[in-house]
């Protein structure tokens, strides 16, 4: 079709044969074979550290393979760098955007074009043209600073599309998007595929892959372990292929609701300035958690989650003592240590550098948060033997893959460190556990273990607050769900009464319409808000 070759059918868009990449101590890619056909959306699936990133970086020329063969449209090629990859017709949209916030969309696109673009007017026209053709609503004159995350991603995609790529690599594109934005993105990707372009789609989200992709290649430990049609698989079977063992479902037991007890935490009228210049201030936040209950807080990152978490954990005490009550007692002004003494434990979003000190051993990191609840300090002297014991206990109970309590926190993989931190907090028998993104960037096996531990904690009568962007996770765990947007928190509602769609709308700031007004249809423009 595109190349008009003599042999039957077009050659595959890209063929990898026996690709090997070795890093000190790790075989990141072990004789990987991959074939991408024109016009297909191909999923690359695997746990953290399975070798997906390395493979994609080899294709995009960022990393050089140690061995193996690469054919582009049937011809052997060697890709020396991203520029060479783009010249062939390979585009990539990274998880983290590289945009200048103070420049306009068109200017950002111009900066990314190799050929240079002297004529901004013509470029703006091309941008408008591409964005209407693929349903990527975008104003070329808008300043990036004003754009939402989803719109910023569109800028990156348009930048790739202007190069007319035959292969577009998307790295975890929906991790920052609301469900509606994700749906729009899928529509765009399907249109691109219909034109004969190939999409290589990297994701953790099994449901997404089943909805979107035509084929999936699954990596485990650097090797290709399976290739399948994800539409014919279940999320369970894909997860099994990915991690090699059965993942037990972590649905809450139906009886869970019976065990919910009296009120544990009440927050009322909590307004406070942002935790730091890049966070969002809180406006009149109200919430309550009962014993044995899991409250899920959804929201797109950067909508006040950090400030709320700091206020709840005590790292940034509230402005008024009665803004936060725990077991009826006003605790708004108490600091992190005093709140932990009361039984409020916290799992922050950042594992390294917040929840754990990278250079210290696991034993020292056990001491970090557990020194009071575990009585690890007597008369100012630390018992390192006891800290080590506690750390070993956490490692054992939560199946943390670590050589021992002496291992430095930074030597653990993200998922294992997360298991350690969650285990450390849970084994302190908290009455209230606040967890931010408990399974962010964690592979499916570890995520299942973490979910199980959190549910078990709630079943034992602790209250939990889970802040997450991952709606699947929230619906798996939470009894009630609330949404945070622009520093305001919606009323919480029983998880079985709200749909993911509604939550998605609220994440986009429409929760006045969606919830306060009794869950009616949201207004198109969002000006259903109270005047003011």
């Amino acid at each position, binding site marked *: 079709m595109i190349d008009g070759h003599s042999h039957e059918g077009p050659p595959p868009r890209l063929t990898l044969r026996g690709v090997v990449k070795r890093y000190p101590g790790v075989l990141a890619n072990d004789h990987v074979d991959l074939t991408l056909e024109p016009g297909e959306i191909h999923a690359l699936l695997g746990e953290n550290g399975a070798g997906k990133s390395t493979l994609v970086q080899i294709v995009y020329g960022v990393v050089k393979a140690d061995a193996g063969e690469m054919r582009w449209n049937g011809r052997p090629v060697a890709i020396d760098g991203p520029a060479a990859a783009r010249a062939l017709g390979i585009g990539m949209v990274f998880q983290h955007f590289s945009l200048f916030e103070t420049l306009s969309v068109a200017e950002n696109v111009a900066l990314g074009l190799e050929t240079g673009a002297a004529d901004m007017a013509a470029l703006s026209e091309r941008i408008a043209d591409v964005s209407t053709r693929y349903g990527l609503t975008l104003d070329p004159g808008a300043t990036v600073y004003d754009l939402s995350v989803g719109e910023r991603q569109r800028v990156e995609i348009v930048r790739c599309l202007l190069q007319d790529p035959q292969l577009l690599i998307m790295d975890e594109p929906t991790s920052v998007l609301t469900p509606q934005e994700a749906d729009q993105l899928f529509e765009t990707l399907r249109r691109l595929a219909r034109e004969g372009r190939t999409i290589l789609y990297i994701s953790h989200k099994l449901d997404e892959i089943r909805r979107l992709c035509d084929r999936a290649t699954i990596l485990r430990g650097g090797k290709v372990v399976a290739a399948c049609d994800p539409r014919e698989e279940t999320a369970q079977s894909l997860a099994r292929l990915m991690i090699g063992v059965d993942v037990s479902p972590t649905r809450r037991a139906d009886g869970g609701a019976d065990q919910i007890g009296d009120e544990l935490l009440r927050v009322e009228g909590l307004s406070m300035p942002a935790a730091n210049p890049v966070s969002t201030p809180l406006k009149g936040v109200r919430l309550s958690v009962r014993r044995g209950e899991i409250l899920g807080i959804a929201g797109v990152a950067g909508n006040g989650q950090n400030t709320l978490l700091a206020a709840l954990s005590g790292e940034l005490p509230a402005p008024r003592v009665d803004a936060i009550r725990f077991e009826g007692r006003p605790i708004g002004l108490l600091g992190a*240590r005093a709140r932990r003494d009361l039984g409020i434990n916290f799992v922050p979003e950042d594992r390294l550098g917040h929840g754990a000190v990278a250079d210290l051993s696991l034993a020292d990191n056990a001491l970090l948060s557990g020194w009071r609840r575990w009585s690890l300090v007597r008369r*100012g002297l630390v018992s390192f033997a006891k800290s080590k014991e506690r750390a070993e206990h956490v490692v054992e109970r939560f199946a943390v893959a670590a050589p021992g309590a002496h291992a430095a926190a930074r030597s653990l993989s993200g998922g294992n460190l997360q298991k350690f931190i969650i285990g450390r907090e849970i084994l302190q028998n908290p009455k209230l556990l606040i967890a931010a993104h408990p399974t962010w960037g964690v592979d499916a096996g570890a995520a299942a273990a973490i979910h199980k531990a959190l549910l078990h904690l709630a079943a034992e009568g602790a209250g939990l607050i889970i802040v997450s962007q991952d709606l699947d996770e929230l619906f798996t765990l939470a009894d009630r769900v609330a949404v945070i947007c622009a520093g305001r928190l919606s009323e919480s509602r029983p998880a079985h009464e709200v749909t993911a769609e509604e939550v998605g709308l609220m994440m986009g700031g429409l929760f006045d319409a969606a919830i306060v007004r009794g869950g009616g249809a949201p207004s198109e423009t969002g000006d259903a808000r109270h005047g003011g």
Partner: protein
Amino acid sequence: MAAEGAFGIRLERRPAPSRAMLLATPPLAVLLTVLAGAILFAAMGFDPLETLRAYFVSPLTSLYGWGELAVKATPLAIIAIGLALGFRGNVWNIGAEGQLTLGAICAGGLALAVYGHEGPWLLPLMMLAGAAGGLAYAAIPAYLRVRFNANEILTSLMLTYVAGLLLSYLVTGPWKDPEGFGFPQSRLFNPEALLPIVLDGTRMHLGAPLALCVVLAGWLVVARTLIGFQIKVVGLTPIAAGYAGFSQARIIWFTLLLSGGLAGLAGAIEVSGPIGQLQPAISPGYGFTAIIVAFLGRLHPVGVLLAALLMALSYLGGEQAQIELGLPLAVTGVFQGMLLFFLLASDFLTHYRVRRTASTPAAAG
């Protein structure tokens, strides 16, 4: 747009610096300093081996020399233990010299105030007065840092010069020896105000065993106590310290007051030990040299003790080389500076590696 065939140098952070390298860098830095010193001496027209012998070996050929080593190492170790604790917590007290001066003023002032009425109670009180003086002086940068977030490096350093001028004023004015023929110095203290000699035939005084106690206490704080752990966490990751509920302000107060107090104690030891009176200059820069000692000792009390001995030797060697070969005394400063330079350089290379980057040969290749 990179020029073809251009070479560049790129610094790359090593994933994890090896522990062996971290321990090996101080001896390596010493070795490099000796080598560079030899080259320097040769360039000046001296026989390098002879000069190095005069510098590093001659001072230690007599018992008296060893005693002198202890006399010089005593203030360095005491001050550096306090500084090292602060540095571990990212609290940069650069003004130990000023705190030492204040300690000397308080201890010396006490000795002068009770002149003629001394008793055995005086020495302990002088030590306390010295420590209190240094502590109070370090409280100024601590307050400014906690209250106004003023950089303690600048405030503590600037206060050093204030302390020096205060001492000059005192010894040229109110506290001047009435029988001192107008020399800017105080009376000589009476024997009750002087630290007893612990090793006959030398000047080694009670301050030396005191310094060993400080080193031991420093080790206890670093290795065994909660406050030592808190300092470490605040220094490594302030956000994690906030998570644990460790107060950064408390750590700033604690480390600045402790290092100030220890510097003040060193000042008291100096005036009641080798000097025996107040003079316009009571320290050959011990407060600054102790910064090098703290780093050379890897901020660890045992390392600090060894580093203090080495730096003390550099003072002695400088004097010896001046006497034997007529080298300028400034060579001591040069040696100390080179040592710090090589230490920082090898430290840097332990954490980073230098990569030569050659832009890929033109597309044809």
